[in-house]
């Protein structure tokens, strides 16, 4: 066979490391050709933004969002990241992608053309498809509204700073941040209800905000209304009332609606923090899947580009080098070990699904009768990307082969013993247990403490009672708990009690209390 050198080089997307805007555009077109054309990915329109490393640090500081209201804790993260970066102890990510419509992808100017192509395949195709199709993102976030909302939040907060002083705003935000993880309504039912209400209320709030911008501020909603509410209730604590529904797991929501002493703008700040917590909630639950999806996609696309002669061998080697360092998983006793690598785990499981769908072994047929040999790996993957989150994904699709490849083993840890014990390894008896434990490890609701407001006396002592359902004897970390309770009490305005109750026996294990002097 004859190789025609001119023809071979003419198909190359680029040659060498330097990039230009034209090259990036060309690379994007080819990447999209494969991603959308061949794989049939369903994506939001992309916006590629070229930024410098300093701007990347800025983006880090605002938790990866293009803009954010101002608060000292972001400054703290900024100076820390900056310090680490300058010292060389922390490298910056190659890319940053925002779950928005249009989907914003940041790429850094100092990267090579190969890396840009990789990033386009990874973020602009992989993450983008996942954001648009995964059920959690669809249910919990509004990609089309987030940029507007951030804009609103930022200007609202700075307006509050002008009107009420930086200290007052900072105090409320501190309090709200402390309870951020308790600002989410986890059960889908309540979420759906709220989501509708939220849309309406948010529009209303924004409308009011605009009105207030040139009107006498904050007096639009009369104050008495807020105070009357608690007094007008008949059986406040028992939970029968329509206004105070107990128990309530969303602490921020509860405070926003019922805390007796808060001003309107303070309630709105709680709401902003709560909405952001909700926006990030799906990301926390889909780390493995999201990164796995993006990594699988970039791996597929880059290989297709190489197969069709659009990538040179040099570029392919550069890509493989960075791909393999991204998907490296150090052993538990390795110095570099810092937990399971979501890129590695997600990528491995998805590659394995691809294998099971096309070349199943008899073991696969036993374990995954529904997808083994189905012959449509991309279709299976797209369905999985849409319908699962980390814990259910692992519980369903972690195959014995991946367990063997990673040499996963289960550990049982009892606090009172000086040793931990190996509970299961990668053998016939251990597969299911390893899989179950790993799934549990990614289940966000079992990682976060289970807190609920169980009683709020709105007439007499105005005491608020929060319960912590203690599972497996794991208590709250004391110092942090006391400090967070202080923030809770500051928002509530009165005495707050936290009881830690054993989930099974119902026995009260510990009580914390914070008195808020009026």
């Amino acid at each position, binding site marked *: 066979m004859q190789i025609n050198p001119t023809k071979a080089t003419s198909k190359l997307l680029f040659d060498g490391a330097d990039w230009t805007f034209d090259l990036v555009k060309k690379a994007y077109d080819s990447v999209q050709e494969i991603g959308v054309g061949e794989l049939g990915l369903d994506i939001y329109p992309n916006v590629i933004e070229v930024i410098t490393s300093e701007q990347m640090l800025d983006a880090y500081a605002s938790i990866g969002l293009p803009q954010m209201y101002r*608060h000292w804790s972001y*400054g703290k993260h900024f*100076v820390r990241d900056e310090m680490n970066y300058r010292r060389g102890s922390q490298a910056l990510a190659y890319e940053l992608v925002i779950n928005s419509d249009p989907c914003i992808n940041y790429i850094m100017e100092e990267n090579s053309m190969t890396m840009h192509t990789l990033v386009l395949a990874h973020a602009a195709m992989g993450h983008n498809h996942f954001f648009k199709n995964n059920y959690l993102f669809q249910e919990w976030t509004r990609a089309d509204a987030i940029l507007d909302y951030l804009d609103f939040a930022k200007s609202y907060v700075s307006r509050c700073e002008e009107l009420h002083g930086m200290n007052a705003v900072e105090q409320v935000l501190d309090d709200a941040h402390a309870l951020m993880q308790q600002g989410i309504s986890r059960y889908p039912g309540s979420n759906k209800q709220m989501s509708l209400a939220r849309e309406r209320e948010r529009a209303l709030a924004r409308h009011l905000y605009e009105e207030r911008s040139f009107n006498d501020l904050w007096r639009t909603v009369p104050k008495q209304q807020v105070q009357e509410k608690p007094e007008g209730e008949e059986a406040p604590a028992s939970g029968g009332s329509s206004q105070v529904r107990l128990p309530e797991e969303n602490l921020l929501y509860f405070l926003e609606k019922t805390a007796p002493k808060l001003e309107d703008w303070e309630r709105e700040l709680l709401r902003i923090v709560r909405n952001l917590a909700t926006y990030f909630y799906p990301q926390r639950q889909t780390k493995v899947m999201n990164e796995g999806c993006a990594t699988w996609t970039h791996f597929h696309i880059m290989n297709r580009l190489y197969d069709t002669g659009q990538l040179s061998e040099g570029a392919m080697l550069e890509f493989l080098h960075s791909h393999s360092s991204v998907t490296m998983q150090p052993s*538990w006793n390795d110095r570099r070990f810092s937990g399971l690598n979501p890129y590695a785990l997600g990528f491995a499981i998805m590659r394995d699904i691809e294998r099971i769908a096309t070349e199943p072994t008899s073991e696969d047929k036993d374990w995954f009768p529904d997808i083994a040999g189905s012959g449509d790996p991309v279709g299976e993957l797209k369905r999985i990307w849409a319908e699962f989150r980390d814990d259910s994904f692992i519980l369903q699709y972690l195959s014995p082969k991946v367990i063997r490849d990673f040499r996963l083993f289960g550990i049982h840890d*009892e606090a009172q013993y000086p040793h931990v014990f190996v509970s299961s390894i990668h053998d016939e008896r251990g597969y299911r247990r390893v899989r179950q434990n790993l799934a549990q490890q990614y289940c966000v609701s079992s990682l976060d403490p289970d807190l609920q407001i169980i009683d709020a006396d709105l007439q007499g002592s105005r005491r608020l009672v929060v319960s912590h359902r203690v599972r497996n004897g794991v208590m709250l970390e004391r110092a942090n708990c006391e400090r967070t309770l202080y923030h809770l009490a500051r928002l509530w305005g009165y005495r707050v009690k936290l009881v830690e109750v054993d989930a099974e026996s119902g026995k009260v294990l510990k009580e914390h209390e914070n008195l808020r002097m009026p």
Partner: protein
Amino acid sequence: MQIVDRRLNPKAKSLGNRQRFIRRAKAEIKEAVREAVRSRKVSDIGAGEDVRISSKSLREPVFSLDSKSGSRDFVLPGNSDLVVGDAIPKPPPAGGRGSKGSKDGSGEDEFVFSLSREEFLDLFFEDLQLPNLVKAKLKSVKSTELSRAGFSSDGSPSKLNQVRTMRNSLARRIALHRPSLATLEQLKEEIAEAEAESPPDENLLEELRARHARVVCLRKTVAYLDPLDLKFNRFERVPKPSTQAVMFCLMDVSASMTERLKDLAKQFYMLLNIFLRRHYREVQVVFIRHTNVAQEVDEETFFSGRETGGTVVSTAFVEMQRVINERYPLSDWNIYAAQASDGHNFSDDMEECMSILQSSLLSQCQYFAYIEVGAPDDGPYPSSEVWEGYEDLIGQHDNFAMRRVTEAGEIYPVFRNLFSDEKSTKG
């Protein structure tokens, strides 16, 4: 798909957050700055600084689960030879999950970050209670002035350089053969003459008229002054040419000067140093300490060494004079002196001091500042020998200032002249 170049967008997007952060941790950072000032050399005061603060006020608590209680199951990768039932000892402090434990652990105790020069000076000045205008002046690194920098072909009319412009115009007119006014006049005369003759020579007249028409046309097409000719004076901002200065730090180091008093004196020297460095490209610092004998020492010894003996101030002046004569000729150097003392002196030495100051030192110095340091609880000052002696100088010499200081905030007024009336001190 759309590609946007954001690289030119403002970079310091996090500045607001950073300022809020510094505001939040102010007490701790200020303490760290004070510490840094103590350990820093007088001449290093202008640089940024890595500060280390405890992150007590920077805590962001959340409800978290205690990894040291209850039981849990988790999965690890990379099993080599473990089988079910094997026991692995827990790592000593941070609990089973390494990353989680250590992250919290190290984050709680200390927080290191670097302050920029600007932020550092801000906090330093805050202690000294400098007026805002002065702060701004001191922080600006360089003062500039306009200086001629050749010519340019565009500019505002007021900067038009007439000589250059006319020179260009002349050269162009010669090159393009623009007929002069004289030629035109002469031609007109010749035509008139030709017309006056009778009978007129029609051929000659015709030729003359044609030439006249050409001359007029040429004068119209080749302008007298073309935009091409314009030349403007160009100015550039250049750093102000400044010379060198030497700063003498004189201090009494007899046993009565405590550490606290020395710290006060140090802040006094630092402030003068910042001021000088704004004005002069090169600032050298000479440290002279004295008891009943004086000697030039390095900074380390100056602040830390301790001597015993009486106090004879004039010895320091003699030493200073010696150094000036040896190394700092008055023609090349601006001399500043800052003296700090607790006010003790042998009473019969004052006369000697005054005569040295009056006869030579004060006329050699651009500025001579004296602070008398004391503890805040000393009450109303018993007048000291030095203070009484120096009181006569006020009014007689513009470049002399003195002040009693018990706290850092009182230092600045000593320099009030120096800062408010820059012209007289620049010399």
